[in-house]
């Protein structure tokens, strides 16, 4: 294979490097931090930067970029039929057909890039925010990075599950040790809720293995995405159940109403960089799982339940936005806005069209950049003003002009202002939704049409604009609340860089949507062909 780095006799693929570099660096991060506290953060910065560079390199290889020699170009022949490229496969547990296999396609590559980017930014954002126990903190971040990236690059269900679970433990500690007032409760709530959901997902994974064993006969069951995507699972009652189990695992992670209760709690209590990763990446794991399973593995089963996904998405959008109106804590407001925005991902998937898929993916990436920005701002404001309560922040623009300006920018981006990243996702998803002919809910004889859903869904968009504007009106403008006398604007280089990076990409993706859309063309087209 041309896509290998070699270290002497050892040949290591680029995806393995991206996947395992952070976890291997976790212990050294802690170790250098024992020498001097600051070393750990610079070390983590270097490693996450390295991972980012490697991810960009993988992107260039994926694109067969002319910057690279032809020998490093990826094999793109199988992409159109739902295959992967830059594939690495090693037999792991032969007895039940588990392999260590990694690969990327148009669906996972943008998320890998996003993960590399958000971790880099999160490390930067931690510089001013995290003061106690830095070595352990940065080691946890590195562990977390392996889990998140592993979820995206795994092409074997067990590796996927392992990476998915690997995320829980460091996140549990991040919330529990470096979190806010009620951190202990929030951490344990987060862990139990999501771990139970993962176990339900594990049942689904075992179910899909069983069904594949039934279909493949003497070849045995398989966990490999490549093999599973070639099989025709149909819509038998068992496979529908399997799909529901997987769906449950994903929508808890997304999270969708009514399984969203862990999210506001975890967000409010998590340290700011933790919130950024939680909103920017952990939620995307749920979306990714949903897209992967519905588009690649079980399209027929997904088509049966499109109405369910659409309704859950719609309710999440409406409920999340509605509840966000009433939030007092700014972090809590952004958390509920995440519930609402991730609802759009579900709506996009439910339409089963390339446009819907593109909208869902665009939302994943756009929200993955905007929500870390919003959480960073909320955290910075909380740090400097000693409160995140919206009523108490009246007129803080006079004290923190730059933060206030960026807050306005971020709010507009999140509300979907044209020209900023959030706009395209909502546009694509709603265009797809308007065109969706809908589905009759089995057993009830009620049909949901795309037009109907879209009409109601637009209300959610209006709420979104409303809560952001109302929040801005109550905080940024007006006379300064006297309690904010001590507040000061951001002043550290790492903070400027964090904001600059995030804003830059919000603008870039807003002005040049084709950058992202072109990257995932093969995946978009394949998704469309699955439902014809």
């Amino acid at each position, binding site marked *: 294979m041309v896509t290998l780095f070699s270290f002497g006799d050892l040949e290591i693929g680029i995806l393995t490097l991206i996947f395992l570099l952070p976890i291997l660096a976790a212990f050294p991060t802690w170790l250098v931090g024992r020498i001097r506290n600051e070393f750990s953060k610079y070390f983590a910065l270097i490693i996450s930067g390295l991972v980012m560079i490697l991810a960009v390199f993988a992107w260039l290889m994926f694109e067969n970029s002319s910057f690279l020699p032809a020998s490093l170009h990826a094999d793109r022949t199988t992409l159109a039929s739902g295959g992967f490229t830059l594939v690495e496969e090693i037999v792991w*547990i032969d*007895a039940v057909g588990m392999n260590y296999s990694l690969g990327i396609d148009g669906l996972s590559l943008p998320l890998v890039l996003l993960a590399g980017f958000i971790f880099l930014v999160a490390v930067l954002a931690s510089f001013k925010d995290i003061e106690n126990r830095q070595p352990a903190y940065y080691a946890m971040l590195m562990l977390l990075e392996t889990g998140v990236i592993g979820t995206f690059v795994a092409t074997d269900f067990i590796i996927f599950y392992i990476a998915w*679970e690997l995320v829980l433990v460091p996140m549990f*500690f991040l919330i529990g040790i470096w979190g806010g007032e009620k951190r202990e409760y929030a951490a344990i709530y987060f862990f139990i809720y999501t*771990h139970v959901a993962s176990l339900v997902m594990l049942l689904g994974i075992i179910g899909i293995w069983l069904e594949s064993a039934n279909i493949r006969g003497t070849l045995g069951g398989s966990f490999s995405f490549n093999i599973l995507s070639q099989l025709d699972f149909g819509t038998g009652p068992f496979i529908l159940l399997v799909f529901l189990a997987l769906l449950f695992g994903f929508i808890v992670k997304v999270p969708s109403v009514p399984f969203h209760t862990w999210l506001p709690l975890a967000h409010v209590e998590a340290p700011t960089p933790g919130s950024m990763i939680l909103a920017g990446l952990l939620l995307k794991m749920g979306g990714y799982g949903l897209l992967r399973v519905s588009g690649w593995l079980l399209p027929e089963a997904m088509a049966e339940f499109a109405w369910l996904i659409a309704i859950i998405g719609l309710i999440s959008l409406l409920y999340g936005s509605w509840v966000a109106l009433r939030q007092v804590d700014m972090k809590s407001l952004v958390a509920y806005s995440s519930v609402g925005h991730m609802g759009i991902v579900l709506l996009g998937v439910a339409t089963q069209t390339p446009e819907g898929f593109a909208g869902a993916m665009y939302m994943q990436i756009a929200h993955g950049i905007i929500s870390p920005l919003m959480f960073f701002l909320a955290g910075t404001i909380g740090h400097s003003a000693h409160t995140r309560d919206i009523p108490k922040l009246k007129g803080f623009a006079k004290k923190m002009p730059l933060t206030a300006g960026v807050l306005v920018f971020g709010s507009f981006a999140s509300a979907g202002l044209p020209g900023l990243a959030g706009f395209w996702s909502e546009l694509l998803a709603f265009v797809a939704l308007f065109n969706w002919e809908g589905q009759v809910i089995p057993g009830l004889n009620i049909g949901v049409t795309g037009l109907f859903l879209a009409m109601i869904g637009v209300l959610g968009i209006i709420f979104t604009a409303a809560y952001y504007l109302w929040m801005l009106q109550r905080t940024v403008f007006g006379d300064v609340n006297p309690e904010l006398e001590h507040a000061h604007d951001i002043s550290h280089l790492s903070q400027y860089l964090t904001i600059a990076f995030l804003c830059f990409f919000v603008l870039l993706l807003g002005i040049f949507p084709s950058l992202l859309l072109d990257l995932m063309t093969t995946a978009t087209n394949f998704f469309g062909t699955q439902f014809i």
Partner: protein
Amino acid sequence: MSDIATILMPFLVIFGTIGLCLVIEAIGRGKWLLGIITILGSLLALFSITTSIGSDIIHLFGNPSDITDVTAASGLLVIDDFYKFFAMIFILVLLFVAASSIDYMGSEKTLGVYYALLMFSTIGMMLVAASNDLLTLFISWELGSLPAYALAAYQKSRPETSESALKFFLIGAMSSAFILFGISLIYGIVGTTSFEAVITEFALTTNYTPLHLLALMFLLVGFGYKIAAVPFHAWAVDVYQGTPTTITTFLAAGSKAMGFAAVFRLIVGSLIELDAIWGILFALLAVLTMTLGNVVALVQENIKRMLAYSSIAHAGYLLIALAAVAGTPSPSFDFNLSFTAQEFAVASAELHVLTHALMKIVAFTVVIVVAYSFKSERISDYAGLRKKHPWLAFGMSIALLSLMGVPPLAGFVSKLLLFFAAIYADLIWLAVIGIINSAISIFYYIRVIKLMIIDKPIEEEAVSAVPVDRVTPFSIPLSYQVVIAGAVLLIIVIGIFPTPFIDFALNSAKHLFGS
């Protein structure tokens, strides 16, 4: 070259070590050597086992005229990979328990006897795994159990120890009686004590009499006590709590494994014809055992009791595999695999016995250190352990996460294989119940992790309420550090590179079924 001395090398090495220990005891000097000698002896025995993995099945003591004959077709002992797998587990347990005893038992008198008893018990357990005859099995069983009763009563100055030792002894004696009665009934049916004869005789029988059933029941009850399956579990919790903690480790990791080894040899290996009956019973026991273990563990306030219930729950997971041995593989699972569903079930159970032993070694060793350091075994006193002993908290977290089944640790792999064993045997509902139980178990494990790592130490919460002597810093002795580090390392290694262990377990399962 199969000299009988080479084959029995592990036993001879341990016997030699016992002799050395007793001699040192008799001389009365150099007591500090005892632990180290035991460790070296067990390392040597472990080495001699690992070098012989994969060789042919050898029957010993089958030829009455020449006891050194190693070519007999049948014999009292069978030296195969199944025995080697379990011997590896037993010796690992011996190794870790001996190491942690160096400090734990350091102030005791007659230490040589203590180590000798540990090793005698280990030899008994190894013989159980190797036995190929009803009577050999029973005698080995007693050899494995009797020293354990003495060990449980070792610190007789502690009142709770005497109570729990007595309980342990009474229950143990009763279960032995059950087993002996079952064995005698089988002897009555078959007329001979060799396992091969039992297998052929049972295979020929077409209609089973109540006598067959009665024999099986007696055996099940007898073994059920040893592996602490519900409803025979009640003793385990009290005994685990009351005995000296090193011995608790020995019981939870070693003695329980012996119970499973005996079940495999006698019930799975020899009474395979009755599988329709014991399959259902094991499935029932599995559901009861894991559910009760997990649910009751939720409300425990004492860490040793919690770990005891967790141990019961894990026995339940293991029983899933036993039920799976009896299950009829679904016809759709006609894969081109190199093993049968039965072999896979046995292999997965063996692997889980190994990983469970390792996890419990870590957990109980941490309990020992904490009990020394804070004079408490209450779960709530684990609050803020990280501040006092960060590495201890780390090791305990790994062990608990592995018990919970979080990847990529050993507990995840072995538990997953157990569930797959159920699936291969077309017992999907059992796998589902197993996963639901895993979900229940999260609550009590994560609670301890949260207390250790996230919560503040009690001393910081209310300074005045705590006597000052409880806060005295305590540096962890080297022996505990080595035990915890070694076992944690094994947990991680087995979790990431399980293949050699799985292959070994599969081979040993094949040997158990005589192929």
